[in-house]
């Protein structure tokens, strides 16, 4: 078991480092001079002055050196300073993480419950009208960008029926009910972005598991169909779905950006969009690291859970390369 964990941790770490470096390099490679953008229009913006600013921001070093400096800082927890606000990036990002975590948490919970329910309804009679209907709705879900789902929900619940606010965020410590009320629409939007994948995968998984020999044995023992479902079919179906769930959290992160922006949730997603608009690369880098790390850690955790539920994973060294 320990070897399994170590192996997974090692490969996750490698991907993490690679992604972060890729992000850094891409930012640096791209044209666009943040100093110029920020200060270029001000008076006294002579080339010399601008250059001095660049020097102090460390932008004149060769790229690799910049990378090293930055990585060194990251390891120590210092993500640099925002070009725009001169505040430490770690502070800016740190402030925003709780909101994103809360949102992602709710999205995953709602999506999981919703998906499992819908799949259970759909597979009662595979190929029935209900099943196909759910299939169509899922197809549409696949093809709808997150912000459109947001628009639809906002229209129905905020503008037409006036039961939920269309924007905003209140941290937990200022009132749980308020917080929840404001979370509902963004969380459901995110859940509906993510559910189609879960539904499709889980459904296929269950249908396959249903016809396997051990399910027949379970029935042959005299177990009730619900016992067969919950003790034998679902656990075996969930195992492959768990891996997908891990990836889905990654997708969720991508959608979360837009959802945070739309619903004015002060999380790292909206921070990314804001800093991108302002060309504040320093902050963007910090956000990227956090987001990527989040994704990789989540995938890692799900891998572990998979290994816990399915003992075969721990033993088989199947590398799907």
């Amino acid at each position, binding site marked *: 078991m320990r070897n399994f964990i170590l192996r997974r941790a090692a490969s996750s770490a490698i991907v993490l480092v690679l992604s972060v470096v890729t992000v850094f390099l891409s930012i640096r490679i791209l044209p666009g001079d943040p100093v110029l953008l920020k200060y270029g229009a001000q008076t006294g913006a002579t080339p010399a002055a601008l250059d001095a600013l660049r020097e102090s921001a460390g932008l004149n070093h060769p790229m690799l050196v910049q990378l090293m400096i930055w990585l060194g800082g990251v390891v120590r927890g210092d993500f640099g300073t925002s070009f725009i606000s001169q505040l430490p990036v770690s502070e800016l990002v740190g402030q925003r993480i709780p909101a994103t975590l809360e949102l992602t948490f709710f999205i995953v919970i709602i999506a999981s419950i919703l998906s499992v329910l819908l799949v259970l309804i759909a597979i009662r009679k595979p190929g029935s009208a209900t099943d196909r209907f759910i299939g169509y709705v899922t197809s549409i879900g696949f093809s709808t960008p997150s912000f459109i789902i947001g628009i639809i929900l906002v229209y129905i619940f905020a503008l037409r029926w006036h039961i939920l606010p269309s924007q905003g965020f209140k941290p937990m410590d200022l009132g749980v009910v308020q917080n929840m009320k404001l979370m509902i629409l963004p969380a459901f939007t995110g859940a509906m972005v993510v559910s189609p994948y879960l539904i499709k995968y889980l459904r296929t998984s269950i249908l396959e598991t249903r016809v396997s020999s*051990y399910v027949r*044995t379970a029935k*042959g*023992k*005299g177990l009730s169909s619900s016992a067969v479902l919950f003790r*034998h079919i679902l656990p075996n179906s969930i195992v492959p779905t768990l891996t997908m769930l891990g990836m889905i959290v990654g997708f969720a992160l991508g959608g979360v950006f837009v959802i945070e922006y739309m619903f004015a949730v002060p999380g790292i997603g909206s921070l990314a969009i804001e800093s991108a608009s302002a060309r504040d690369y320093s902050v963007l880098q910090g956000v990227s690291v956090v987001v990527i790390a989040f994704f990789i850690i989540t995938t890692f955790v799900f891998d572990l859970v998979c290994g816990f539920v*399915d*003992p*075969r994973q721990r*033993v088989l060294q199947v590398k799907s390369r």
Partner: protein
Amino acid sequence: MSDVLRVENLTVTVPSFEGAVAAVNDISFTIPTGTKVALVGESGSGKSLTAFSIMRLVDHPVKIQTGNIWLGNREISSLTDKEFRTIRGAEIAMIYQDPMSTLNPIMRVGRQIIESIQLYSNVSTKAAKIRALELLNDVGILEPEKSLNSYPFEMSGGMLQRSVIAMALSGSPKLLIADEATTALDVTTQARVLDLIDKLAVERNLSVLLITHDLGVAAQFADEVMVMYDGRIVEKGSVRQIFTRPMHPYTRALLDSRCDDTVDYSQPIKSIPGQPPRPALRDDKCSFASRCSFVQENCLSSTPTLIKYGDTSAACFHSEKIISTSEVF
């Protein structure tokens, strides 16, 4: 003492290119108490389907068209599905071909056995665990604690099948149906498992319905044998009778075509000519006729039904002739 199982007019249809056909075609048989019966036949003869139908483990589009089944004195074919569930596993238990795929791969073997125990009797998990260990002991597993905590993939085929047997016996059933239960095992393990089932049958007055395509296994193990061909039982009788004086041409041909130390190898192997029958092409004739070396005209104009000859029955118009012309095997 009544029979443990009585089946009458069981017909089961399956879909095919030409529509629904009867893969099990109006069969009837009984299994006396404390008897081991072998149901032999080639692939597609309908033997496994018979077993699944008795257990009601068939699902759409396979359909049980007709059939009356008695378990002891009780008519079980008219029970609702819910009522039948109390019988399944508890009074009739079934074991299957490949234990590795017929056990839940992500659940420990012990837990699956305990699941069965708790299904049939209201005991605590602790008590169930003790019972499970007893059962594992009974089936000859040397380190029951270890097996209890193992996953299926961690155990060998033989040990797994023993565990499956333990699980099947946890409800003290009256009848054990073994569907090709030893086919996936190597020959030595096969012998041991059969011995085990034999021993358990004697100890617990358990009746066994062994489904197999292996004549040797049937001969070694069973008290009575039923031969199936094209969805019908074409011969049934005591194992001695069947193997020494077969009364149906098919049974005879099967025995003729075996390869063991009694065969004269200077002659070519006597295989059965022709192809296995296609259920859709059934007609009002004997379905073995095209491959039969005793075929006469009337074989092609009507379907023979089982005719009793003392303790044996054979579905052939010309059994007497077969008996008189055959050597004793």
